[in-house]
């Protein structure tokens, strides 16, 4: 079952319905599918949550996933880690499920579209200053762009843009290229080899989800912890100064 042709680089090109500038393509359709699966599963599992020791298997599975995400976030953001869980967790779950569902015939991963990856990267691009400013204040956040001095401002801006682009392209490139490789292999060696590649694809998909989520957290953590470190430096300087004066 081939929905996206081998010559079509992105599922965005497969348009299902269009009216004016409003376009519904395969990417949006499968995004909604992934969203529905995630939301419906969450609703079904969390409908009867147990706070006792006896827990259902699904609840246990989701608890393990969320506890792992929470643990990873906690390692980077020392305090207030729970507020990053919705963004980072959703990034991981959405990308992971999209990539894993590739194994289902006829499914096209939304993450193989550069539009989706760009949208996710843009969300991170906005989230970084959002969390940075909410943690440190606008002035302190902006001050970081002029560290160690104002000459570095353009480099900081370029860095921000570059890493957003890197996030976009890395995920898109990995997933898209893998889908194309599978497509090509299917036409060349249709038996066992594509199965191995599919398994490899699952691994790559999960790793990519992990990388995307972790990198996003790293960016957010660096933006929020800058202020704390700055504060610590100032406190140390104040202490030294008071020692000298006394």
């Amino acid at each position: 079952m081939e929905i996206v042709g081998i010559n079509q680089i992105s599922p965005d090109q497969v348009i299902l319905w269009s009216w004016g500038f409003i376009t519904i393509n395969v990417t949006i359709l499968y995004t909604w599918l992934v969203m529905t699966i995630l939301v419906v599963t969450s609703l079904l599992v969390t409908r009867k949550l147990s706070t006792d020791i006896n827990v259902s298997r699904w609840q246990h599975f989701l608890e393990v996933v969320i506890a792992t995400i929470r643990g990873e976030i906690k390692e980077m953001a020392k305090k207030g880690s729970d507020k990053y869980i919705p963004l980072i967790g959703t990034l991981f779950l959405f990308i992971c499920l999209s990539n894993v569902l590739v194994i289902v015939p006829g499914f096209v991963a939304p993450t193989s579209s550069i539009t989706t990856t760009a949208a996710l990267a843009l969300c991170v691009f906005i989230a970084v200053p959002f969390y940075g400013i909410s943690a440190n204040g606008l002035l302190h956040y902006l001050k970081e762009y002029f560290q160690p001095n104002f000459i570095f401002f353009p480099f900081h801006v370029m860095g921000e843009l570059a890493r957003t682009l890197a996030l976009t392209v890395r995920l898109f490139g990995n997933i898209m290229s893998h889908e194309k490789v599978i497509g090509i292999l299917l036409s060349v060696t249709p038996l066992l080899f594509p199965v191995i590649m599919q398994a490899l694809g699952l691994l790559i998909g999960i790793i990519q989800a992990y990388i995307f989520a972790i990198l996003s957290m790293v960016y957010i953590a660096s933006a929020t912890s800058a202020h704390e470190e700055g504060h610590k430096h100032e406190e140390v300087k104040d202490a030294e100064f008071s020692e000298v004066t006394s």
Partner: protein
Amino acid sequence: MHIDWFVLFCQIFNFLLLVYLLKRFLYGRILNAMDEREAKIAARFSEAKEIKAKATEAADLYDKKNQLLAEKSEQMLNEASLAAEARRKELMEKVREEVDAIKTRWQTMLAREKDAFFQDLRGRAAKEIYATARKALTDLGNADLEAQIVEEFIRRVRGLDTAKSKEIRKAITGGGNKVVVQSAFDIATDTQSKIEQALKQQITNGFTIRYMTQPDVVSGIELRVNGHKIAWSLNEYLETLVENLTETIQREAHSA
């Protein structure tokens, strides 16, 4: 490769919507459940720790009580042993006393029986000896035993030394000049005059003699006056006989 801006914004919206929905239906609920469970477990742990502490305390208390109880029991056992020992000694003493009393009673009874037996023996022996002696004397020399006894009595009266005679004389005077002669047999009148004559010659004149027949005076005759006595009877021989007999019986009893 171009980017459709509508799709881009649509995807951003979709993602933000997903973030919101998952935050509401997944993370919030799961994290709450986890935190609640952790709190419950922590509460249970602290409760368990508290219960454990209480249990340890109770166990310590129990051990202490047990120890006290054991000590008390040992003490009570010791006291009971001492009391039992004292009681045993007391009972033993009582039994010993009772045995001694029984023994004494028995010995007394035995002595009484012995005395009665010898008394009886003495009586019978006296009668037998008296009869035998009378018969022997009659058969051999046509002699009268009673006369021989009186003869012996008169001989004893005449054989009194001066001091003894003086004492008896004084006694006769102090006793109202009355003399009693007791004998186991009747004394003939001529024999009475012989006795009277002997007494008057040896001791004094001026007193009256009264003769009394008494079977207690075992085959003999005696003169009693105010605490003084001149007598002859078989008693002396009988005493020797009883002594010899007692010795023989005891020897026989020991050898048995």
